[in-house]
């Protein structure tokens, strides 16, 4: 009988074991957040693009209204997913993807690759195990994020920061406020899981900036 219990525990532990190894293989989280993570961004530029021309002239909408993101790839954490459209619920809260295996784009904001903070959200886990953004917190500054668009373009971003924020102190301005460059915000859950409220207490927020 004891053996039966042990075997059942072993069986239950198996997926968790893989999970643990996946996490331990990567760099620590604490070191990837905070002011130190911005080192090296935007330095050593010898000739800023666009000087000498009148870039940014004209209306902002134009082609942006037609394009939408179709797929997301994050090689460092082996994410490759399609993207569904996300919207707000009646209370104005972002509706997460309804499936754990796919990420979503907030269609009420900028298109990835266009100027502004484009928002992609995905689950950290399902009821059963890891989901599409389970390893999002393992991203480090410099990691590459690719977003395919319906206009055939692939927008290439580099991570500039990974941080965790309490949901009750969500940094709305930092995530949604205007940005002068084409940027990306990748959001999932993290931190402690509140079993009574059935929710994680933190959001993990990855910020990335367009490089192409």
């Amino acid at each position: 009988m004891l053996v039966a219990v042990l075997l059942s525990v072993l069986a239950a532990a198996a997926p968790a074991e893989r999970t643990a190894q996946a996490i331990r293989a990567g760099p620590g989280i604490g070191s990837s957040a905070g002011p130190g993570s911005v080192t090296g961004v935007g330095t050593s530029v010898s000739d800023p693009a666009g000087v000498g021309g009148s870039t940014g002239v004209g209306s902002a909408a134009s082609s942006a209204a037609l394009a939408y993101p179709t797929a997301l790839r994050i090689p460092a954490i082996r994410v490759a997913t399609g993207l569904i459209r996300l919207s707000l619920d009646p209370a104005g809260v972002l509706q997460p993807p309804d499936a754990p295996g796919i990420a979503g784009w907030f269609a009420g904001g900028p298109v990835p690759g266009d100027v502004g903070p484009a928002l992609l959200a995905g689950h950290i886990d399902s009821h059963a195990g890891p989901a599409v953004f389970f390893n999002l917190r393992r991203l480090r500054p410099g990691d590459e994020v690719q977003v395919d668009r319906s206009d055939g373009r692939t927008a290439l971003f580099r991570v500039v920061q990974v941080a965790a924020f309490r949901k009750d102190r969500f940094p709305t301005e930092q995530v949604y406020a205007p940005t002068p460059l084409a940027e990306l915000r990748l959001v999932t859950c993290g931190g402690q899981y509140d079993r009574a409220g059935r929710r994680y207490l933190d959001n993990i927020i990855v910020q990335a900036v367009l490089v192409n």
Partner: protein
Amino acid sequence: MIRHRRLAIAMLIPAALLVAPAAVAAAAPAGVPAGQSGAYLRLAHLSPDTPHVDVYVASVSEASRNFTAKGVGYGAVSDYQLVQPDTYTVSMRPAGAPADSPPVLTTTLTAKLGAAYTVAGLGKYADLALRVLEDDLSMPPDGQARLRVIQASITAPSVEVSLKGSDSIVSNLAFAQTTGYRTVPAGAWTLLAGPSGGTPVELPVTFAASGVYTVLLVDKNGKLAAELHTDAIGTGPVAPVGGVETGMGGTATPLSGLAALLLVLAAGAAALVAAARRRRPQGVDGR
């Protein structure tokens, strides 16, 4: 007995691995400040009678952050560069002048995390100044955009800018002056710009909700021209409220992990106790 001991060890290894995700999750730094990645900087040449210049941006603390924009002519506005928060000197030299020659103009800029700046050579050559303009990156109200005017045209002593069918943006703006930002309703407009009280030029524009814009007035072929530059775009027309619920708890460790761990430890201990009990009778027999 050996079988039992092996089993106990086999049990303890997954138990240790189970603890790992809990430890990593606890290390996630909730409430870490600083969201933005750096500061944003762009350069502009807005002096009609000043020849082309080379613009040098130099960090006071770290030379690897330096960059140069060469051969910048009147009317040019660069894209934004992401720069490290730092104090920078911005110097203008005549195009082609040696980098160690005395600059025509120098100013200092302390770039703060998450802030955006436009450094512009503004005014006539005789009284040219390098101006540091802070660009507003705060969120416009829902459905609104934000707009300011930089007047770099010398064709009229003062200019008026308005949106057709709406209020005036500014009615009397002199050369080398700028307005602050004001909110305007997002959407398609016809921008009117011309001498105060005179005939304006028209520019069709579209303001994105949550967009931030600069209307730049410059002279082109001796005539006033209006350009719309996008300073920044936000999440609009309506940004989400609060955080995002993107987890169902299937990998959350506090209960499932701990419970499994305790079970494993108890089982391991039981196995060891069983092994010890089996060994003891043998010892007694041996005596």
